[in-house]
């Protein structure tokens, strides 16, 4: 059979064009899309794998530092535990030779240490105390050493200064060195979730 070459060439070129436009190019486009999809899925898998690996590492590190975590849990408890708190304050006051005459809890408010700490509540207490200056110093120190985070915002000495001038206090000693009992007001802050 004799082939008419120019017509055959033209026909083959036409078929090639048809094949390219209707089969090869669409399949190539699909190939590119699938390739990108596969890349995304692989990256997602790798990222998740690395993330959970890091989580597992951090988790195991946390497990080895339970003591430190407990300290943080105690310093920043999930609940206010007001009963325990009041009991603790009374105990600490008695241990240090100071009497809590009154305790007033103001409304819990959000801590103002930063925007990221929106869940942290600030509990403010006003304490009226009776004791000597050294007992007050010991009480403050014991609060600062406690597992729970306490912050003293102000201390007021409510005792009458006339006591000082009337000679009941030795003028050789300063206000803070006298063993007499005085009234104090303490503004105390603590935190919880």
């Amino acid at each position: 059979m004799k082939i008419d070459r120019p017509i055959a060439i033209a026909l083959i070129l036409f078929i090639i064009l048809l094949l390219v436009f209707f089969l090869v190019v669409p399949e190539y486009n699909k190939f590119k899309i699938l390739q990108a999809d596969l890349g995304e899925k692989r990256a997602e898998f790798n990222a998740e794998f690395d993330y959970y690996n890091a989580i597992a590492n951090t988790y195991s590190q946390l497990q080895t530092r339970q003591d430190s975590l407990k300290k943080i849990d105690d310093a920043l408890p999930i609940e206010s535990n007001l009963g325990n708190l009041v009991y603790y304050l009374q105990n600490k006051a008695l241990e240090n030779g100071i009497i809590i005459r009154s305790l007033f809890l103001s409304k819990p408010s959000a801590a103002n240490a930063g925007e990221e700490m929106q869940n942290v509540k600030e509990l403010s207490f006003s304490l009226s105390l009776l004791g000597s200056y050294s007992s007050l110093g010991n009480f403050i120190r014991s609060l600062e050493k406690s597992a729970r985070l306490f912050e003293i915002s102000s201390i007021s000495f409510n005792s009458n200064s006339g006591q000082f001038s009337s000679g009941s206090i030795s003028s050789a000693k300063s206000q803070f060195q006298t063993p007499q009992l005085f009234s104090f007001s303490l503004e105390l802050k603590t935190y919880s979730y």
Partner: protein
Amino acid sequence: MDFGTIFQLRTKKLWWMDVILYFVTSLLVATVLCYFIFLIKNSIQRKDIEKEIVALETVGTYQQKKQEREVVAYQKKINDFAALFQNHQFASQVFYFMQQETMPNVWFKSFNMDRENAIVNLPGESDDADAFSRQVAVFEKNKYVKNINLLNYTIAASSRIAFNLNLALDPKIFSYITGLNPIPQTETQSSESGVQTNPIK
């Protein structure tokens, strides 16, 4: 149009016509091959994607999610604690400072701390202006007192001096790591000036 030339191409047997014919034929074969190659490749890629989806389901199990929740919760808690601790003020430092620096014949009614600006407000009374001025001098000499930014006094009805002082303190005094804690209480006094010996100077 010169149809003679086209007719010549059809009748004459030209060697380059064969070359072109073979070339376009091989191009056709290559195109078909390409199509099948892409078909196979796409099928393989679909399978790979399915495998990746299955693999993704194995990551983030219930156990891992539980660990993640715990870690994130502790991370937040640690950050909150760190922020609180960073801003934490140790009032005892200022209390010890007051114990050491307060002179006889001077009476402070209260002390209020402004931690952010490291300022302590001290309203009080003294026997006389001399005692008050010596008290101010003692504060000024202390290395933890940066300056006194408010100072006023009036003679009260009892002929004593009622004063108000604002001490701008070095923020280091509020820190636990100052080496100041605890400041031992001393009753030693300078015989000449009546000023107490201050171990934190």
